[in-house]
């Protein structure tokens, strides 16, 4: 028999039934089934206690938010059928009636209030940082107060997954991590650690039952094994197809390769302090905008895309993608500062650094796609304008503590930033707002960039509850940032999936594979 039973299990139709009968496998649930290979197992299935990709994928199968984020980062009614801004800091969300939890209980406004309160005390408390208080007006109406006007609260609510108050209180935190129970389109059938997470469609889901009845997620860390599992029929869909396997999978008529730019923007933060930790000069050259521009022009992002990334990256035009609030139509970092060595050298000369200087790049060697290779390429590129770039590569377990503000060991930091909230405001206020000026602002401003004009636009954006106005203020901030270059955006990584041709896969901008959107023919 040239196919394993697992392969047979993942398919339906006569062939599969024949195989099943032939191998005398136990009777399986009727209907469509899909097996997906992920890069890792989930660690904990409590949506308020973890922030890693596999967990997030599971959370959105098992739970629902008030506002749903589509694959293209649009925001639609979820558990809330509508919402309105009552005054600058008050929002009212009206819940859908008759929404059932997996145990049959009905969703009530008190569950939403409990969720907010539980999150405040949890590891992921940052998800509700923009909620001052929650109150149930009646069983189906929730009033949320924000600490200050916040025009995109509904978008932030797309990341707040609603748990059942009764269930969470009854089972306690540890069991919440093992036996999740929400309103989501799938319920947990089985979780065998490091082997599989099996989900089955929840018949009473408020959107209607999912087309695929059973989804099995298998953690397969090794990229070559993942590809082999797809080719041998062990799985139907794989996450993160390795770049070197793309051509061979594409050439096979039974399979398809699906790619889409991710939200993760690789950015370099430039130190703008008076004195920079790794630059042995009395004054930090990067305080001079001309030096920052010279560095930008010396980095050949297209070469990085072609040579280092094998074509699997999208050069970033701004700090956030075009779907986001704050994106300026027609403004392109790559067109404003095209790769131009001669111009870059002139700028260095004008600024008085014709002879260049030496500094250190801090980045990871196991967090971003080809991070170490990119760092090496950057060193080569900057050497051509006289900048000696020493590389300080470290595993991610050390990196994020090392570069943490006040970043007193770093001058030049490459890291990724993604903004699934669909709004540039969060990134700007955290990464570029003057440090230490206000609580909750500038806490990851690693280059200590400070421009009162920029801050003023962020302040304005954060003091209106009108989304159009917020968008306009953020656009102004984007223009200032592109002019000042506190950070150089490099590229968005590409997400690559491969699947059997018969499976319809919808790649999502936020990377959260969602079986509810998939189908099998």
């Amino acid at each position, binding site marked *: 028999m*040239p*196919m*394993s039973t*697992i*392969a047979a299990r993942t398919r339906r139709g006569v062939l599969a039934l024949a195989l099943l009968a032939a*191998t005398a*496998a136990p009777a399986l649930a009727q209907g469509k089934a899909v097996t997906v290979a992920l890069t*890792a197992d989930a*660690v*904990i299935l*409590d949506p308020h*206690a*973890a*922030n890693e990709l596999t967990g997030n994928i599971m959370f959105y199968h098992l739970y629902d938010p008030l506002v749903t984020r589509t694959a293209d980062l649009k925001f639609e009614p979820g558990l809330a059928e509508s919402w309105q801004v009552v005054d600058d800091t008050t929002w009212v969300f009206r819940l859908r009636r008759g929404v059932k939890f997996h145990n049959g209980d009905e969703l009530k406004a008190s569950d939403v209030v409990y969720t907010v309160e539980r999150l405040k005390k*949890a*590891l*992921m*408390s*940052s998800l509700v*940082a923009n909620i001052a208080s929650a109150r149930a007006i009646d069983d189906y109406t929730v009033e949320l107060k924000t600490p200050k006007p916040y025009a995109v609260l509904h978008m932030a609510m797309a990341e707040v997954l609603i748990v059942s108050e009764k269930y969470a209180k009854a089972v306690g*935190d*540890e069991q919440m*991590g*093992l036996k999740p129970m929400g309103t989501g389109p799938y319920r947990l059938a089985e979780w*065998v*650690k*490091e*082997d*599989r997470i099996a989900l089955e469609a929840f018949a009473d889901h408020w959107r209607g039952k999912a087309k695929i009845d059973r989804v099995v997620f*298998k*953690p*397969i*860390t*090794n990229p*070559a*094994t993942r590809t*082999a*599992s797809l*080719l*041998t029929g*062990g799985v139907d869909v794989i996450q993160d197809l390795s770049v070197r396997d793309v051509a061979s999978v594409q050439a096979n008529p039974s399979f398809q390769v699906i790619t889409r730019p991710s939200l993760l923007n690789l950015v370099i933060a430039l130190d703008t302090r008076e004195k920079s930790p790794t630059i042995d000069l009395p004054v930090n050259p990067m305080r001079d905008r001309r030096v920052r521009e010279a560095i930008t022009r010396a980095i050949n992002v297209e070469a990085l895309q072609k040579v280092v990334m094998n074509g699997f990256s999208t050069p970033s035009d701004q700090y956030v993608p075009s779907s986001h609030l704050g994106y300026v139509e027609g403004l392109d970092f790559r067109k404003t500062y095209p790769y131009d060595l001669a111009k870059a050298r002139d700028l260095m000369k004008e600024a008085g650094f014709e002879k260049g200087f030496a500094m250190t790049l801090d980045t990871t060697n*196991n967090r971003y796609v080809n991070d170490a290779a990119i760092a090496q390429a950057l060193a080569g590129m900057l050497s051509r304008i006289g900048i000696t770039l020493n590389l300080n590569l470290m*595993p*991610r*377990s*050390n*990196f*994020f*503590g*090392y570069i*943490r503000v006040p970043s007193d060991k770093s001058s030049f930091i490459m*890291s990724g*930033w993604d903004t699934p909230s669909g709004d540039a405001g*969060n*990134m700007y206020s*955290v990464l570029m707002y003057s440090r230490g000026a206000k*609580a*909750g602002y500038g*806490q*990851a401003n690693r280059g200590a960039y400070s421009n009162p004009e920029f801050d003023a636009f962020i302040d304005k954006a954060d003091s209106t509850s009108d989304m159009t106005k917020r968008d306009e203020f953020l656009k102004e901030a984007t223009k200032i940032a592109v002019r000042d270059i506190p950070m150089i955006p490099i590229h968005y990584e590409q997400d690559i999936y491969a699947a059997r041709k018969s499976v319809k896969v919808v790649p999502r901008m936020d990377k959260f594979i969602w079986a509810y959107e998939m189908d099998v023919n």
Partner: protein
Amino acid sequence: MFGYVIKRAFQMVLVLWAVSVLVFVMMSFTGDPTYMMVPLDATEEQIAQARRLLGLDHSHLTQYRLFLKNVLQGDFGRSFVFRQPANSLILERLPATLEIVFLAMAIALVVAIPLGVYAGANPKRAGSHAVMAGSLVGISLPGFWVGMVLIFVFAVKLQLFPSSGRGPTQEVFGIRVSFLTWEGLRHIILPAVTLSIGTLAILMRIIRAEMMEVMRQDFVRFARAKGVGQRGVLFRHGLKNALIPLVTVFGLMLGDLIAFATLTETIFAWPGIGKLLVDSIYRGDRPVIVVYLMFVALMFVVVNFAVDVLYALIDPRIKIR
């Protein structure tokens, strides 16, 4: 014998304590795991809250004191990442690892003994040279490469075995095992073979060397003179005496395979403890690393103890003191 056990137990406690100190000291250099668990835009208060939740808000010394206090009460700490007791994380994954390790050791023994005896008894034959050359290849090949090649040939090309994962499991005395069904066996064969190759090659070389040594001894000549057949000489007299050093090596190798089946587990997506260790190192999940390494140390101590006892049983000339 009793004194010996006491001495061993004391040594064991010492080793475990040393391991725990080492891990704590090492982990204090690898940075604060909190930063990997909170979102990058977390504020100071949110980070402080996360640290409090994880029990990382004390100094390293206090954390270690708390750890020791809890261990004495049978609590080995909770994983920062999983929020589950660290020892149950390990115990949960242990059966899968033991399964491939025992099967790998069985394969290694079944193949290595006849080949080793043959090569040791007939060192000059062409077949023996082939066996020796093969064993050299087996020692030199990196396990992950062997695994990839086996997947490519037997799963992708010939489609004889599944490429990864563990097959269906059954409960036997509360432990989940997968080798009882054909489907489960099909899943376990490739990883077990991959894991066995290095061990097999080394065992074979040791058996050969020992056999060559033993076959020169007087008692072998006497046995032959007495009229014992070739098979009896080789297995009853020769192999039995050659096995003594093998027991030591075997014990150490068993420990080695259990502790470090990591690569094989990663390649075959085998849900064992090896992957847990690697993931925990990446995540800076100290409680899991400490308990894992203490467990490994404990296992080595126990295996060595068993080997010593076995020694005395196999060879009456050896006394345990």
